[in-house]
């Protein structure tokens, strides 16, 4: 038996052992507290397919597994997460390869005070100065290992302070320090307590330390004089009055030459504004943001998605349908301007447009452009200047109209039209703008309490054409069909196929079977995965092509 096979079996046994031990711990209770947790195992087998570009996997089986265990006893809690990437699934960074305790902490919390030692996740405001978070589907984990303190000296006042290093796969890097304060004026000003208008103000300051290193300039013999302490600060407000809401945050960052900005010394800034109104059956929201050189990492020379200290809120809709999400937008922390409007309305029952059951419409539009910049130099200079209200190239545009209507007590139809403009430059390569039209019909038939049938049909017409030199397998015109059957409330099976019928390549069929019982879910799938990009909240990762079996097990206790 090969070492790889032994490793795979050992990993499976380890997961099984952990489940057994945790169940025992839970049954017994530990020192008056209790143990909860969850286990997830995802596996993948893929083989070569020259059409879609997938390769044979030397290990045959790739797997990502994790088990989170949380012990709580009154105000005290402790937890750990065991992760095993043997070897990492396609699309996940190979530096994850290995297994071990990736996250551990102890925490003590009261109503006014909380302290966490070990790994923790934290966010200041919208995250524009600090957001330590994890998204397992992106393979992203910016957890900080250190000390996090939250103190509420008075009702309505929250102070936070933290210091630590960020997770970098199986290592920690950098040094991050931060403070945040948030004050709800309605809670601390007696005369405002009952006011209809509610106002919360906040501010944060985060700094990182990184020692000197040799980054050569473009001028021979000279290196960059690097700032070793880089700070970022922000001010924010949250104003609400009845159904109206207005949130805003403005952040600035000091000189921070890094690989992301080609080692320029320009300071960074970002502004995010969101205005909303909602009432029963109606909601409207408009957001705007401007980001200029605001990438902030704890290690200046690391590219990719790891080690980000901050996060720039996404301003484009996160679509769920396949073709609408085929070209997701990746936030450009180096510079972008964006505007998004979102409107939802429910036509009431027994009206002309509402019919017998009512009709929901959802309109969303967004536009993101580059900045209007003037280049003044390269590495080791201020890089460029930009005008605050000026715009550059179009990066992304998206307009979608979704209408959802119950046709009968058992049948619901959702129809969506989307128009999308996409600039390949946001994925790092030059090319013409893509213009896509997308239609989606989604029909759900609730046959009875235990049987639900769902049909989905999608079409995408695009002016993009497959070019072997560029090898973007999303190009061309596509159709897709999906049938999903949920039965006995526990089982589901779905069959789908995506086919590039014009100017593209690829036929991506998939079949999935799933079973759910209590808190345990098992899913098996077989088919082809198109090479592409997935984005969650504007943060993206590459997904390579695959052809084969996938399976996943999740359970919690």
């Amino acid at each position: 038996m090969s070492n790889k096979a032994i490793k795979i079996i050992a990993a499976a046994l380890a997961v099984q052992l952990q489940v057994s031990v945790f169940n025992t711990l839970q049954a017994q209770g530990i020192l008056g507290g209790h143990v909860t947790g969850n286990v997830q195992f995802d596996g993948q087998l893929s083989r070569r397919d020259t059409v879609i570009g997938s390769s044979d996997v030397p290990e045959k089986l790739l797997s990502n597994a994790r088990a989170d265990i949380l012990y709580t006893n009154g105000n005290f809690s402790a937890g750990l997460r065991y992760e095993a990437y043997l070897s990492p699934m396609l699309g996940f960074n190979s530096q994850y390869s290995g297994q071990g305790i990736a996250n551990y902490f102890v925490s003590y919390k009261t109503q006014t005070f909380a302290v966490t030692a070990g790994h923790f996740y934290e966010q200041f405001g919208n995250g524009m100065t600090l957001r330590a978070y994890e998204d397992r589907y992106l393979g992203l984990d910016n957890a900080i290992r250190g000390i996090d303190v939250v103190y509420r000296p008075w009702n309505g006042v929250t102070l936070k302070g933290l210091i630590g290093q960020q997770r970098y796969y199986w290592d920690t890097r950098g040094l991050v320090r931060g403070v945040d304060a948030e004050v709800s004026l309605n809670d601390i000003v007696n005369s405002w307590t009952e006011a209809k208008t509610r106002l919360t103000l906040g501010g944060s300051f985060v700094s990182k330390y990184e020692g000197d290193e040799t980054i050569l300039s473009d001028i021979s013999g000279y290196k960059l004089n690097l700032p070793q302490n880089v700070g970022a600060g922000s001010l924010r407000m949250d104003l609400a009055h009845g159904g109206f809401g207005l949130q805003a945050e403005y952040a600035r960052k000091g000189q921070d030459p890094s690989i992301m900005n080609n080692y320029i010394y320009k300071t960074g800034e970002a502004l995010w504004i969101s205005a909303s109104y909602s009432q029963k059956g109606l909601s409207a929201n408009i957001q705007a943001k401007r980001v200029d050189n605001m990438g902030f990492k704890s290690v200046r020379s690391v590219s990719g998605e790891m080690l980000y200290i901050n996060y720039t809120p996404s301003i484009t809709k996160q679509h769920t349908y396949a073709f609408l999400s085929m070209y997701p937008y990746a936030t450009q922390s180096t510079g972008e301007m964006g505007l998004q409007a979102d409107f939802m309305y429910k036509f009431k029952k027994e009206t002309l447009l509402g019919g017998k059951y009512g009709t929901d419409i959802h309109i969303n539009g967004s536009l993101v452009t580059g900045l209007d910049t003037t280049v003044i130099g390269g590495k080791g200079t201020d890089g460029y200047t930009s005008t605050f209200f000026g715009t550059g190239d179009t990066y992304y545009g998206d307009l979608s109209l979704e209408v959802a209507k119950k046709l009968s007590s058992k049948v619901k139809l959702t129809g969506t039209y989307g128009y999308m403009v996409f600039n390949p430059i946001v994925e790092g390569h030059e090319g013409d703008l893509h213009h896509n039209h997308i239609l989606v019909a989604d029909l759900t038939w609730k046959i009875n309490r235990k049987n639900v049938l769902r049909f989905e049909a999608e079409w995408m017409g695009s002016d993009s054409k497959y070019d072997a030199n560029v090898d973007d397998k999303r190009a061309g015109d596509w159709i897709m069909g999906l049938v999903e059957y949920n039965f006995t409330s526990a089982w589901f099976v779905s069959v789908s196929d995506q086919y590039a019928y014009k100017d593209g390549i690829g036929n991506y069929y998939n079949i999935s079977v799933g079973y759910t019982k209590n808190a345990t879910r098992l899913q098996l799938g077989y088919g082809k995965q198109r090479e592409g990009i997935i984005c969650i909240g504007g943060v993206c990762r590459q997904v390579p092509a695959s052809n084969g079996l996938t399976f996943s097990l999740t359970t919690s206790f």
Partner: protein
Amino acid sequence: MKRILKSIATIACAATLLASCDKIDSNEYLVFSGAAGEWFDGNGVSDHSQRAIIEKYTGVRCVNCPTADVAINDALAQYGDKLIALAIHDSSSFTRPIGDNPRLSTEDGNTWSNYFGVRAAGEYPAGLISRTLNGSAWDLFTPTSGINNRVDNILNNDAQVAVAVDATSNDNAMTINVNLEFLQTVADKLTVTLLIMEDGLVVTQRQPDGSDDENYVHNHVLRDVITDIWGADIDCTGASGEKRVALFNYTPASSEWNLANCHIVAMVSKKDSREILNVAECHID
């Protein structure tokens, strides 16, 4: 209100503790990579040319030396920046000034003259191109002819090491950058020799007809060797593709030199054999 003030004070204190951001002035974005004379990874050399240097041992009382100057000037015109000329006045009797003219001799030039056997041979002018050997002896020749074939022998080969030099002077403090890029793997230990030479020196020169030309213009006159006379060691592996850079500081030895007429020459040599692999020249900005 008291609570608000307390909150603000707390935040201000914490922010002050953390607000230790470094701010770097725009004129300090770049710093030299290390101590003077140290070698670091560089960005390479854009001009991969092979060049040659002709060292002419000469003297103001040498009647055939003006003829050599004509031949060398012709060669310079022919080869352009691929050929660099250096005029070395050693301490032979030919270099004794005529009248009250300044002496152009240098101690460094005299050392080289002795090492390469010019003084011992006693024949002036003497030329040596890129310090090449003819058999086991230095290929000394009379540079009134025979320059082209020697230069061609060198320029017809691809450069093993590309060299670039640039120099700036500020209040008489000179910084000189030397960049190297290995175009082929070189196993020998190498040195770089930096020198300063001056053009446009009007000093009386004896002519072939025995007369003295008081308005004779001497060019490429060696003024000083900036590094050790046999060069500074180059810290490198010599592997093809390697790029190295070093900065050297220098204060001109005499305030009488006109830096506007001066050039810096960088010679990359094999440490053991003294043969010059490549050479570069620059003005002083």
